[in-house]
């Protein structure tokens, strides 16, 4: 019976091990299959015979000899516990296993170390987190997440090339820092191409240098015009410039357009890895309306525009591209912003550049596997309004983000007044000459007010008044 049981278990194990090596065989190259299979069969047959002769599982012995010992032995079992287990196992105490020291030799086998009853609640003197340990824990979490990404995330991630047109203005630092921080969190290789209208400036350069990302900073020789129409056109030209740079340098990866005032979610970068040639994602349009009464009145007949309009691909029931959701500009006719600092709503174009992603191979000059429907960027006559102008046949666009159902980024345009000025690089240097303490200081024993010999403060809440003639004060209304 013993032998038959052995055979049974061996057959069971044999099917197991074939199961585990099966997928590997199928995944390996067909040409290499036969030698490995032959090795395995011969080896297995030999082990079977030896085990039959010996009467026990031969492979166990070999595994024992060849096995790698685990580097981490549990320090949690105190020697007393080990002693306990040894105690109950050795019925004859005359021959104990000598390799574990028994510090309490007079404890009998049935004496448990664990006592029932009331125990004290152990609280350490400083029950607060230790910062060094918190950092270690965060590193552990990072390592686990990297491993998860390796196993379950995108296989073979491609480099992402981000194109951002920008120019120096009041909100420039605000917007660019936002995009920069989003890009710093992306777990893939990144190249950031920043095209700046008005030429390369130190402000932008110092900002993007802080990111630690690989950047290509180019200047564009025109200054940014003051109307939205013109601005959109210039931005398109700047983006084409960036695409030409990609073509010259033969960068390989996925191009996405990150306008500096847009807000990107991290899932966007995971999703665009799925693009084959030309993809489109849904963009949420955040248009702000200044007049709330109008909005309330409009709500009743506002069935066409959803609460947050979305631009992007539209799919039919079988998840194929059927059309495009674009922004409905009719409700805003005549009321939209014309100049950059208008208080009226800023409207997006029909289809924003930021909703499209391209494979860089589409831009290369001589790429053998380039599809036929892509136009060469050097052959464009005039500018294109959106990347769809680059394709001959718009139906080849791949809808991403669950066929356009997921909104992965948001478009918004917020700019400051045209005459608003700000300190260069947002550094107040040299320091201010006169400071006037505010009347509402919390310190009761503050020295009495200095005789004020300055012009009256323009900012009402600001206790600090700028007086240097070089500095222009910010006018607030």
């Amino acid at each position, binding site marked *: 019976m013993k032998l038959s049981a052995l055979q049974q278990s061996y057959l069971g194990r044999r099917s197991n091990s074939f199961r*585990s090596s099966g997928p590997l065989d199928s995944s390996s190259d067909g040409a290499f299959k036969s030698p490995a299979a032959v090795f395995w069969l011969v080896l297995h047959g030999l082990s079977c015979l030896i085990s039959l002769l010996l009467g026990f599982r031969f492979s166990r012995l070999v595994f024992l000899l060849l096995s790698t010992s685990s580097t981490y032995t549990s320090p949690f079992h105190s020697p007393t516990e080990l002693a306990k287990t040894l105690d109950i196992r050795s019925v004859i105490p005359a021959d104990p296993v000598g390799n574990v020291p028994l510090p309490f030799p007079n404890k009998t086998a049935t004496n448990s170390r664990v006592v029932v009853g009331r125990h004290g609640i152990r609280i350490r003197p400083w029950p607060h987190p*230790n910062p060094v340990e918190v950092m*270690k824990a965060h590193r552990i979490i990072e390592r686990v997440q990297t491993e998860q990404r390796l196993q379950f995330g995108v296989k073979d991630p491609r480099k992402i090339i981000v194109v951002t047109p920008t120019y120096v203005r009041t909100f420039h630092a605000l917007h660019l820092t936002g995009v920069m921080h989003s890009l710093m969190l992306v777990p893939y290789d990144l190249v950031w191409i920043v095209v700046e209208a008005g030429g390369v400036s130190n402000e932008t350069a110092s900002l993007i240098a802080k990111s630690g990302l690989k950047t290509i900073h180019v200047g564009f020789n025109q200054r940014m015009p003051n109307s939205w129409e013109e601005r959109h056109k210039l931005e398109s030209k700047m983006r084409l410039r960036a695409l030409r740079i990609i073509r010259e340098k033969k960068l390989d990866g996925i191009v996405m357009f990150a306008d500096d005032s847009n807000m990107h979610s991290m899932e966007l970068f995971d999703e665009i890895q799925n693009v084959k040639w030309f993809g489109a994602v849904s963009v949420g349009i955040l248009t702000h309306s200044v007049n709330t009464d109008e909005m309330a009145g409009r709500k009743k007949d506002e069935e066409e525009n959803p609460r947050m309009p979305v631009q992007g691909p539209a799919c039919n029931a079988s998840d194929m591209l059927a059309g495009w959701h674009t922004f409905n500009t009719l409700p805003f006719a005549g009321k939209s912003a014309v100049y950059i600092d208008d208080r009226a709503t800023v409207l997006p174009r029909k289809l924003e550049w930021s909703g499209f992603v391209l494979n860089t191979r589409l831009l290369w000059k001589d790429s053998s596997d380039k599809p036929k429907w892509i136009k060469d960027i050097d052959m464009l006559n005039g500018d294109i309004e959106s990347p769809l102008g680059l394709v001959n046949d718009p139906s080849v666009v791949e809808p991403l983000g669950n066929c356009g159902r997921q909104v992965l980024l948001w478009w918004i345009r917020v700019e400051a007044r045209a005459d608003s000025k700000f300190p260069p690089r947002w550094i107040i240097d040299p320091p201010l000459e006169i400071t006037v303490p505010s009347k509402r200081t919390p310190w009761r024993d503050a020295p009495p007010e200095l005789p004020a010999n300055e012009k009256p403060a323009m900012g009402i809440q600001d206790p600090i008044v700028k007086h240097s003639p070089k500095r222009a004060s910010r006018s607030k209304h």
Partner: protein
Amino acid sequence: MRKWFWGFLFIAFGFVCSIAAERNPRTERISGSAGDVLEDDPVGRLKVYVYELPSKYNKKILQKDPRCLSHMFAAEIYMHRFLLSSPVRTLNPEEADWFYTPIYATCDLTPTGLPLPFKSPRMVRSAIQLISSSWPYWNRTEGADHFFVVPHDFGACFHYQEEKAIERGILPILQRATLVQTFGQRNHVCLNEGSITIPPYAPPQKMQARQIPLDTPRSIFVYFRGLFYDVNNDPEGGYYARGARAAVWENFKNNPLFDISTEHPTTYYEDMQRAIFCLCPLGWAPWSPRLVEAVVFGCIPVIIADDIVLPFADAIPWEEIGVFVAEEDVPKLDTILTSIPPEVILRKQRLLANPSMKRAMLFPQPALPGDAFHQILNGLARKLPHQKSIYLKPGEKILNWTAGPVGDLKPW
């Protein structure tokens, strides 16, 4: 001679190849002290005879309270159902290796759903009296080749309070039988040597239904939901969980790495899948369904229960899968957990990801290969063949049928 040398090299190379082939980068093979036995098939290795008891011992009890099918003690019911239709069942008791008595001893529930064990000793006694009088197999060995499923708090001690349970000890007439129980603590009266420890029942469909995508990053470091103080039964504290849960709360309630609370959220299962470590401290008894949930959701269990014996301890190398923390080391829990090297953590996660590990903790209906039912049968099969000494000579009696508290001797 040269040919033999080359032949040996050939075999050695093939051997190395086969070892490399077995290591899947995502999961790792689990081998406990009994070997790689999680995937063993018990069919053909043992035969079980199921006694036909009158339905007052099983079906009628279940009909009275169907909640018994979903609470954590439901293993006894599902084991009965599994055995009735399993290929290991034999209708011929002469060829059986093991005998099973289907008694649902943990199905007398309070209105809130907790089982009362007060009538269970009498019920078991009456069942054994029945089988010893109607079949000769009990008297042949005085129960040494019989097994019983007793999933209650302290197993066959049949009490929920530990002190009372220790006082009672294991029911005298079950002393020779093999007990399949959830309770396991070394050097404890209520754990007989040779008992098989099983996981508590956790509903497999509920857990399967709440799985989240595997690429959701694990961002919670330590997760725990449950009581820290049992104000109803232990108002002063220090008694419940031997003060260990209270120590966890007092030391780590301010620690942002520890997501611990008494509130049970609706996203409990999803949160466990987003956590790296899940605490499994003892409560009134050392075992809890948290271990099963942690294993199924891939969260490394941190077991805080001194001397606990975990389910299928001879088949599953719990030391390599979970983290054991002594109750006195609870104040240093954060130091202990953060000082584990990341490679070790990744290895534990790989072991947990092994599907055979998850299957071994569950009681699915219908039964699947490698699940907890099969592990129980594997455990029973590993105890075969029975030693000759268990068979009593005619007229020999070892068990004392009148031992135990007087209340137990009353008929049921």
